């Protein structure tokens, strides 16, 4: 597949939004792949975290958001601690989830009212937070 790069497309609004939410500079990524190499769930991902970052930098929103990578991300922070450029990759994954959530286009997420009574109270807070962050798909 061929893509045409222009200065409007490259590092576009989508990229900037991900950078703003995550607080990370994606130009800093030099594609070494250490994040993907150390990720405990990368075997199940459509593409590795480094590829998602590359798509995002190039402004390829569809390619970046159309993969399961950041939904499978367990926020274990292996990637963040391994990154030689100090990029908080887990935050970037988080930001990608947020970008999808904020669109409010998808309706397949967990319906909270359908939870059994008392279930929410019994959930540990960390599970509650991460569950909400990732409750789509």
């Amino acid at each position: 597949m061929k893509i045409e790069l222009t200065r409007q497309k490259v590092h576009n609004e989508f990229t900037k939004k991900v950078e703003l939410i995550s607080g990370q500079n994606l130009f800093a990524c030099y594609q070494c792949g250490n994040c993907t190499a150390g990720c405990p769930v990368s075997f199940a991902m459509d593409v590795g975290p480094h590829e998602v970052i590359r798509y995002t930098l190039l402004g390829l929103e569809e390619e970046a958001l159309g993969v399961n990578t950041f939904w499978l991300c367990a926020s274990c922070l292996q990637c963040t601690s391994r990154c030689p450029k100090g990029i908080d990759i887990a935050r970037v994954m988080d930001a990608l989830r947020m970008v999808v959530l904020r669109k409010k286009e998808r309706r397949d997420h967990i319906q909270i009212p359908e939870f059994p009574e008392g279930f929410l109270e019994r959930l540990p807070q960390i599970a509650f937070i991460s569950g909400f962050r990732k409750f789509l798909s």
Partner: protein
Amino acid sequence: MKKRLGVFICHCGVNIAGTVDVKSVAEKIGKIEDVAHSTDYIYMCSDPGQQIIRDAIREKSLDGVVVACCSPSMHENTFRKAVRSQGMNPYLCEIANIREQCSWVHQKEKEEATQKAEEIIQATLEKVRKNDPLEAISVAINRRVLVIGGGIAGITASLDLAEGGYEVILLEREEALGGHMAQLSRTFPDLDPAFSGLHLKALEVEKHPKIHLYCYSELEEVKGYVGNFELILRKKATSVNEKKCTGCGLCIENCPVEFASVFERGMGMRKAIDTLYPSSVPNKPVIHREHCRFFIDGSCHRCEEVCPEKAIDFKQEDERILEKVGAIVVATGYELYPKEKLGEYGYGEISDVIDGIAFERMISPNGPTKGKIIRPSDGKVPKEMVFIQCVASRDPDRYMPYCSRICCMYTAKHATIYKEQVPDGQPYIFYMDVRSDCKGYEEFLQKTIEEKGLLYLRGRVSKVFQDDGRVRVLGVDTLTGKMVEVAADMVVLATAMIPSDGVKDLAAKLRATVDRHGFLTEAHIKLYPVESSTKGIYLAGCGQSPKDISDTVSQASATASKIQALLSTDKLLQDPLIAFVDEGICSGCGICVEICPYEAREMEPHRGISVVHSALCQGCGACIASCPNNACELRNASANQVIRMLDTFI
């Protein structure tokens, strides 16, 4: 009388001892009648190892030594010094190479290797038995130096040598000093202006009492050898009397003829009488006769009329200057791969596709656009800017196999300067690898990528073509596996560095060698990197291999210090292992004179025989092989010795 020989066998750690049974070899060799001492040691070249040799010479009164170890190019000198310290003539010490020529190549055949090592030692013993004690040949030397090339390499070497107290002749074929560095805008990794630093050094050269500067001049002829070179220089006619000229520039202002400037990479014009660049060093104009109307049809005298000093001299002729020097530095620099030969990427066809130096001129404040980045075709500011690296470099099948080394960093610098000037533009950099291997380079690269948002795309560009006023670039981003296309406003090609024009002819004159690309070859890539393979000829800068300014300056200084060591004495000691002629046998046929590659053989007319010029002879043996009468032989490698050595193997 039988000699008393000593044999010292080195283990070289496990390099030799891991394959050759050194103990048994030492024992067997020790039984030979004239071997008075035979022993082995883990590292003979170490100080305790050398001490073993020194002690044995003293205690056993040895008069010949064989060290069985690595190649003589490694430690022959070490051991010859060691034997000399005990009063033995150093040429009675020989190396038996049992590492490169035995243990390393026979690692799987230990028994045979042991036997071969023994035979190599026996053969070397045969040589030592018939070796003569020799003395180094002493030659008087001229303590001046010729530096060819007035770029940053030549400037640095000249200044270093002159500061060391040596007289320097600096030769530059252009009208002024500076070389390619004078064309550069700013330098990586500190983004310092290139010109100001260079200009200071050039002025220092011009004013230095020990440096004789010849610009617009070429080397016509070289004769002689290390310590005693005789030169003929040609100082081309500038048609301007440099003593009268004050550099006021009136002639340049008034000259009606303009032509495309090579210095400005064809983007700017220059006059028929002009300096190479504004405030050049020396700042004296030159008339380019092929463009000047006086020389074409005699129709114009404008410069002569306006010159207040009457400095214009149409009748000036080329001058031939004779000089003598003891050493020569070749600092001839580089060119970028020529447009005509590339035939790719629209180079030479699309005006908005330019090369790295053209872009340097564009971003130089004294350049044709006064430092503004604009499209050559229509003067518009380019908003989509493509940089392509490795153009004609790292392409063994079609162009140059080597890495040109400077392009990665200058492209990062170009993209940075572009982004500073055009903040809303996007630079795209197509690369294969980014090589940033010197101090501060990687940091510079990463910092600018992050801060300026340079988009690096990993992959070669397949095609560049003109499309509706834009330059369409087809490439790939191998990191995503996607083909990419950019409709660029302008493209800068980081074309390969090649040796500058005419180096092959110059090298032939100097009897120095060049590699298949035309880069001058060094005597040893690691151990003698600034010496050429010809004694007395030294290298500096990109004429030897592509390198950036930091490396060029370091190499030029290294060259200068090597030469200062060479010239620090009045006499030069030469290896005496050279050819000699048995005057009773020589028939004077002259075959050796023709065959000698070093011009070391000469006919002596009144005696009708051929003689050896001992300072020029390199001991290659070509004359010996070609002599029909066996009249010449090499010192300490006589036919008799060689046959005896061969006999031990058969």
